[in-house]
Each structure stands twice: as C-alpha cells, then as structure tokens.
C-alpha cells in the first residue's frame, strides 16, 4: 500500500445480487422494514413515508432508481439505510436494501 491511499469506510449492501457501498458518514442508521404510507402523484421512485421516531422520512426505492426490477410481491426488503444530508443532521432519504 502506498502512502496516498486513503482509507474510507463504506456501508455495503446488496441489491438484486449486486454489491453497493455508501460512505458511512452519509449513513445515519439502518432500519428494518417499516410500515410505509405511499404518496400518490409522487415520483415512482418514492416508496412512501415512514415514521422515524416522530420524524417523517421519505423512503426512496433504490431498485427503481437504479432501473432494476421491482421486488416480487410478498418479499419485503430487509433493511433500510438512512442517509443524512451532507450539510444537516436531518435524515433526507432512506433506501431499501437487501441482505446487508
């Protein structure tokens, strides 16, 4: 390893068999499947709203964002990661993740 190699921590997860990573500083927490309230008329990538301990967080469907096939009905995504916006501590979006 050379000196200029920087070490970064990533939160990794799998979607549809593919391995992805998100910089851990962007991850506030990882959640299990939550009841969601869908938002009619919203962009199709918006899965719904979840109640994160009294805060309302928009859940995005990463599968949709990445153009992958939707989860077959009946199989709930396993967990979510919630990423705070770079500038604020408020969770901005959460993403469904399979098999973290």
């Amino acid at each position, binding site marked *: 390893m050379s000196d200029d190699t920087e070490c970064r921590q990533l939160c990794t997860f799998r979607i549809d068999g593919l391995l992805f990573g998100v910089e851990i500083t962007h991850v506030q927490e990882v959640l299990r499947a939550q009841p969601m309230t869908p938002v009619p008329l919203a962009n199709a990538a*918006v899965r719904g709203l979840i109640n994160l301990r009294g805060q309302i967080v928009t859940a995005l469907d990463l599968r949709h964002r990445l153009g992958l096939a939707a989860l077959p009905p009946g199989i709930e995504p396993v967990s979510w990661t919630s990423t705070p916006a770079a500038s604020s501590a408020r969770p901005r*979006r959460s993403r469904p993740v399979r098999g973290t």
Partner: protein
Amino acid sequence: MHGKETELDRTILEAVKDPLTHVVRNAIDHGIEVPAARASRGKPRTGSLVLRAFHEGGQVIIEVSDDGNGLDTDAIRKKALERNLVPAEQIARMSDHELAQLVFLPGFSTAQQVTNVSGRGVGMDVVKTNVERIGGTVDLLSRPRVGTTLRIRIPLTLAIIPALMVAQGDHRYAIPQANLVELVRIEGAATRTAIERIHSSPVYRLRGQLLPIVDLGVALGTTSAPPAADIEDARLNIVVLQADDRMFGVIIDDIRDTEEIVVKPLGTELKGIAVFAGATIMGDGQVSLILDVVGLAQHAGVARARKDDSTPETRSAQRGVISAIDTKQALLLFAMRDSVVVALPLAEVARLEELSVDQLECTRNGFVVQHRGGILPLVDLVGVGQRKRGDSLSVIVYTRNERSIGLIVERIVDVVDEVVRLEQCGTEGDVLGAAIVQGKITELVDLQAVIGRHAPWFFEAEAA
C-alpha cells in the same frame, strides 16, 4: 431594533407583516411628538422607536415602543362617547389600560389630523383581527407623556391544526378543519343519481347550489373501495370544502374522526406535489398525508385560474351582469351541437333567423349569407356540409357596433324566464358557468368567447 435573529413560521410572518407596518407608522405619526414639544418636556429632540422580538414560553413577542406622547385617554374617552362605541357608564368605570384597548375597536381614531399614512380610523382593528386570526393577542401599554408600547404575542408555529381524518382506499388523509364547510352523506338508491354531469365534470346539487365534485381516489390516482354490491348498503360521502372563495365537494370512501394534528413538512422530493400540505403522525404511529385544499382544487380543475381572453373586459362585464342579477331574466335555450341544450341571455341576441342551406355562400372566412342587402358572416357550429339542399338552418344573430355575425346552431328550443344563479363548476372555455333552468342544469354559453374562437376576425376588425 432588537432580536433580529428571532425566527418565525413563514405563514405567521405573512400575517403580521402588514399589522406591524401599520403599528410602526402609527407610532411615528401619532406617538412621537414634534421636536419642540419634546424639548419642552425634557426629552431628546429625536424620538426613538424600539422594535423588539423575542421568544417567551413557546410564543413570540413583538414589541413596538415609542417614547412619545402616550395615548391621550381623555381623547379616547371623548371619541368613544361621540361614536357611541361603549356605554357612557361603562367608560366612567374604565381604567386607563382598559381605555387604551378601545383603540382596537373598528372605526376608531383619535388623531386630529388625517395624514396620508395614518389616522383614517381603519387600522388598529385590522391589526387586532389579523393577529387574532393566527391565534395571537395584542396588548397596548401606555403612559401619558412617557410613551406607548404595543405588544403582539403570536404562537411560534401554526403547526398544530384541527383536522378531519378521512379514508380513501387503504389510506387516511387529513383535511384541515379551516377548509371544511360541511359533510354530506347520501345513502341507498340516491347514490346512483346524486352526482350529475355537466359535460364531463361531475356536480352535486346541494340545496339548489351546484357544487363541483372531485373524487379523491381519481384525483390521487389511487383506487377506491369497491362500491357496495347491495344498493341498500351503498353510501356516498361528500366533504364540502372551501378553497379561497370557491366551494367544492370531495368524494371519499369514509369519514373517520376529527383530530388535532401536528403538521410536518414533506421532504424536498415531495414539495412539488401541490395536493399535499404536509404529513402528520397519527396516534398509531402511521404517517398520514395532509391535503392542501387549494392545491387539490387546482389539481382537479375545479378552481382553475381563468384563461386570459381576447376580450377580458367584455367577458368580466358580461359575467358581472349575469351573476349580479337575481331577478328573472329571459334566456334563449338552444342546442348548439350534439343535441345538448344550452342557454344564452336573450339580451345578447340581436335576432333569430331561419335560413335555407341553399342561401349559403362560401368565402375564405367560411360561410356567409346575403341578408337585407348586406353580408352576414356565419359561424358554423353544426357542420353545414352534411346538410342536404333545402334543409333549413337556425341562426342566432349577434350584433355589435352595427356589425353582425350569425351562429348556425342545431336547433332553437325555447325562450324562458328564469332566475339565473350562475355557478362556476369546473367548466371553462366557451361557458360562463351553469345554472338551473327549468329544473335542469344548463350551461350558459359565453357568446363572445364562441365567436372569438370561431371567428376571431370579428373582434379584431373592431379593434383595428
């Protein structure tokens, strides 16, 4: 100025902006004395006006203080008696502080001189009304010759609102009570006939008034609960809402409950959806969306902003004439096309003509007919080309500035006298609105708009 960093909900800020301006003007105009008077009282020649804003116990307090003359309680007492605002015996018992509050009564001004910025007696009552509308209070503290302090207390946020919870499909939505007018429930066989249609817009007749109807499931693109198989069990819930100055009805699956809800903003990803004002967390932890009534009305097209028209003045003038009249008015009923009977104020019509297809001649601008030694241009609303030779045509002639134009319509039906109560109900374009004529919902045609659309040159020539 103190407390510039004090933050306020934007909606609240909007509500206090005008009152504050007014209060500041008042203080400068009436409160602070002229320099000479100040000097004689041992005050600095320059008056001072202090604006303070700070938080106190979940409220924001805004204070406007001046070191001026204070309120002239004798003048207030005199004025109140003069204007008969408060009974004389009550005034006699009032403390100075109570007297000071009298300036909030409508029509009160103690200023000797009316200037262009204040003193017209419309002001402090408006200040009070505006502040109270957002749940705040106004207090006035005054010490003669020392100064006046006006203190406005307003809630930090309008975030907690009473709302009606309704169910649509599998989900619940909150409707702010402030927009709610009434709830209508229709049961049994009546559900089949309750909703009528004007063209494609559904309407409901609520005590003789036409109410545009929005189906929440359709508006949101979600599915509704399947209609009850048994007509006896069928029911229709209509929530009558007020959006600005327009009323409309929303069909929902079920009405649940009223609740005090905490309004939470939606994420930036969802800000663009005008139909929702925010979201809230219900007692069971579920998230519910809050409907934005004005946004919903616009989304569903029941409160669409009127399109600009080539003749806006004439349109509005004409609309004014029709809607202002509550007495009987002669209406011409005719079928414009497709056998749909519509109405037109008879006053707009110069005359009716029966013409034969054979009389028609063709020009670049469409059909014309020789008439009384002149040329009468025609607007073909029925498709004359398909008529056989020898057929007769019904023509409505409209005259303006000694120029005439004829509208070929399908059929003249009748002339009736009706009290016209014009309702806007989601219709647009060539229609002024709808009214109940002889027990049937009939659209009133905007004749000028029809002509403007089919024969724009008719009005253009006039402008030239």
